[in-house]
């Protein structure tokens, strides 16, 4: 009885959920088999519920694949590593000849990847690394993102007290970014010019956790913080709120992703830099590479690839795109690209003399 009831409810919940959310590519069910001829490319999202994937990445990937004569199918693992393993197999069963994976967990996905490669299906690791020498790794250069953030902050505060707000500990990107910081400020830390007053990982990259952590760092250092290296924009939002509560908003703060709220903060001057990775370029690169892999399965033969040594010591073929640091003086780049409207960017900006994009 109870089990049947449970099943009924879960079923209903699933229907409601599916009905309400535009499931990636609206093709989770497998109704859209390749129309014949073209090559089917499967995309496995780890968590579609993030601002950028649906809005920017997916349309670019889909377009590149369809322009190349292929068919795009996709599914979403909803932040579950186990679901993602099943999803990858589903994509292959649905006829995918190339699989693109945005990995929830860079290690847990390895068996599925090895299996796919074993079956002669090339795998593209999208934006997040997968520790398998056979994959094609396409991403923005995350160490470079870290360097860019640190460079802009270091320019403004070559000497002083830093706080470092890192992302989720289980995410390799959090470590890459920190490595990038080290390359820029490492020497200054050794010489004592820069003192790191607080450094913490942030569960799930959550802004509210970053806010609480920042409050505690300010408390323990008695507000003696001159600059904050925050690994992304969401957390920078929490950091700026914590600073604002102490009347300290305006000290240099870094971020990345080009979130609308963050770009607005750059215009307002409460955040120094948001390193912008144009997701459309990334999507296009992945889509083009997938089409190339349809005809030639050798991941090293895809153009513009270079060898990348992973933290796990694997050498993988990779395409690393260069990100763009967005500062107060080049905000026009994001407006011109149609990434954000001028109204949203300039909301609340009263002094436009320093913000050319708002004039």
């Amino acid at each position, binding site marked *: 009885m*109870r089990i049947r*009831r*449970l099943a009924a*409810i*879960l079923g*209903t*919940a699933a229907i*409601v*959920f599916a009905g*309400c*959310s*535009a499931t990636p590519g609206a093709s989770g069910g497998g109704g859209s088999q390749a129309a014949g001829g073209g090559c089917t490319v499967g995309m496995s999202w780890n968590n579609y*519920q*993030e*601002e*950028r*994937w*649906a*809005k920017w990445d997916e349309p670019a990937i889909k377009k590149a694949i369809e322009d190349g004569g292929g068919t795009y199918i996709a599914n979403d693992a909803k932040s579950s590593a186990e679901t993602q393993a099943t999803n990858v197999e589903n994509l292959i069963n649905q006829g995918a000849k190339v699989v693109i994976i945005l990995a929830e967990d860079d290690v847990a996905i390895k068996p599925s990847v090895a299996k796919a490669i074993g079956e002669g299906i090339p795998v593209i690791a999208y934006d997040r690394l997968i520790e398998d020498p056979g994959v094609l790794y396409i991403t923005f250069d995350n160490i470079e993102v870290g360097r860019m953030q640190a460079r802009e902050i270091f320019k403004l505060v070559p000497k002083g007290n830093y706080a470092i707000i890192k992302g989720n*500990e289980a995410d390799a990107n959090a470590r890459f970014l920190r490595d990038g910081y080290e390359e820029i400020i490492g020497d200054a830390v050794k010489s004592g010019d820069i003192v790191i007053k*607080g*450094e*913490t*990982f*942030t*569960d*799930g*990259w*959550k*802004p*509210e*956790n970053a*806010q*609480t*952590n920042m*409050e*505690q*760092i300010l*408390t*323990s250092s008695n*507000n003696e913080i001159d600059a904050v290296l925050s690994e992304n*924009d*969401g957390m920078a*939002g*929490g950091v700026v*709120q914590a600073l*604002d*509560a*102490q*009347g*300290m908003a305006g000290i240099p703060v870094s971020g990345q992703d080009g*979130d*609308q*709220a963050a770009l*607005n903060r750059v215009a307002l001057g409460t955040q120094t830099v948001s390193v912008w990775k144009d997701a459309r370029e990334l999507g296009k690169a992945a889509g083009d590479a997938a089409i190339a892999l349809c005809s030639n399965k050798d991941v090293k033969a895809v153009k513009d690839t270079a060898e990348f040594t992973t933290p796990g010591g694997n050498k993988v073929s990779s395409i690393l795109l260069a990100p763009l640091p967005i500062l107060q003086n080049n905000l026009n780049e994001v407006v011109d690209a149609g990434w954000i409207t001028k109204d949203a960017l300039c*909301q*609340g900006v009263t002094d436009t003399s320093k913000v050319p994009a708002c004039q």
Partner: protein
Amino acid sequence: MSEATAVPTTAPSREPSTGRARSVLQSFELDTRLLGMIVALAIIWLGFNIISGGLFLTPRNLWNLSVQSATVAIMATGMVLIIVSRNIDLSIGSVLGLTGMFMAMIQAEWIPKTFGLGFDQPWTWIVTIAAGVALGALIGGFQGFVIAYVGVPSFIVTLGGLLVWRGLSFQLAQGQTIAPLDTTFQLLGGGPKGSLGANLSWLVGGIACLGIGYSLIAGRRRRRKYGFPTRPLGIDIVIGVVGVAIALGAVAVANAYPWPPQLASQYAAENGITEPAGGLIIPTGIANPVLIALAVTAVMTLVATRRRFGRYVFAIGGNPDAANLAGINTKRTILMTFVIMGVLSAIGGVVLSARLNAATVSLGTQSELYVIAAAVIGGTSFAGGIGTIPGAVLGAVVTQSLQSGMVLLRVDSPIQDIVVGIVLVAAVGFDTVIRRRST
């Protein structure tokens, strides 16, 4: 808070009357569990204070702690009623997220842009909160209906809710972070500007003292009226004095935290005040989220212990069949507990989004775990029928103390999770053993 030290909601008669000392202690009718928690909290605070070299017990850190605990405390008061009546609500983090996102859309998108009425209207925050709370009540009512009238277990309904409401929250803003929020609304999230200042804080302290006095006197009068033995007068006086001291002490601590110097100078400059030599000292006082949490605690304690509805909830938890046979409308009562939970989740959404000055897709994820932990650490039993509102609020303060203290000591997040998890199980285990021994 101290109101309930005087009026325990758990039946003290459960404890046996062996030994003279125990029976004397029993005649005091103190909630030993609540006392135990206060002692545990004191140990945690002193421990952190020593390890951190005196950083923990500063007005500033205690003030931070009070604000950081507020959201979980607000929701934990509702979770007590849910768990006491043998249900569970796993959806509250998602309800918080959805209502928070809904309110952010109202104040940052729909009112100013869609209707073209502009930002920062004086009435924006009221409309926003009314709509958000209504949505919370509606969601809670819907889940409560399915649970109470359709008969689907609450675990399943709210597990579904956890997925559905979070998904809807994503749909609402297409995954975007909505910020900045209305300037008046932001004040509900705390910060020096979102606090009461010295005078109003003392006023709140004064009201708390009157409340403590009144509840003690009314309690004695009521007992005499029905011919119950009253507590020794001396004990009531001690309880009253301690309660008043805690209330006024808390206000004094909140007022001892001055506005940050940078903010005070800005304020002085904006208002044309010449700064004195040592800088302008503005007492911060009780933060708005804390005021909200206190008000919610007081109301919920009243509802749980002094209203028929609260009695019904505890009766249902104690024995659902007996409650039903006694003529209690159990279905309606269960439905109402979920409506209350929905409303409290929406209030949690107000505080959390106002504090962050943004609504994100991840707003409130996993808060259901912290809320349930707070209620359970605070002595709410999954067997039903047992639990107190002030206990749950203390539970929220305990968990947040552990987390904030560890950040202060630079302990990283995975270790924090480990510690909180162990404390959760240890607290309940300890409690269970003590209980078993005493019966």
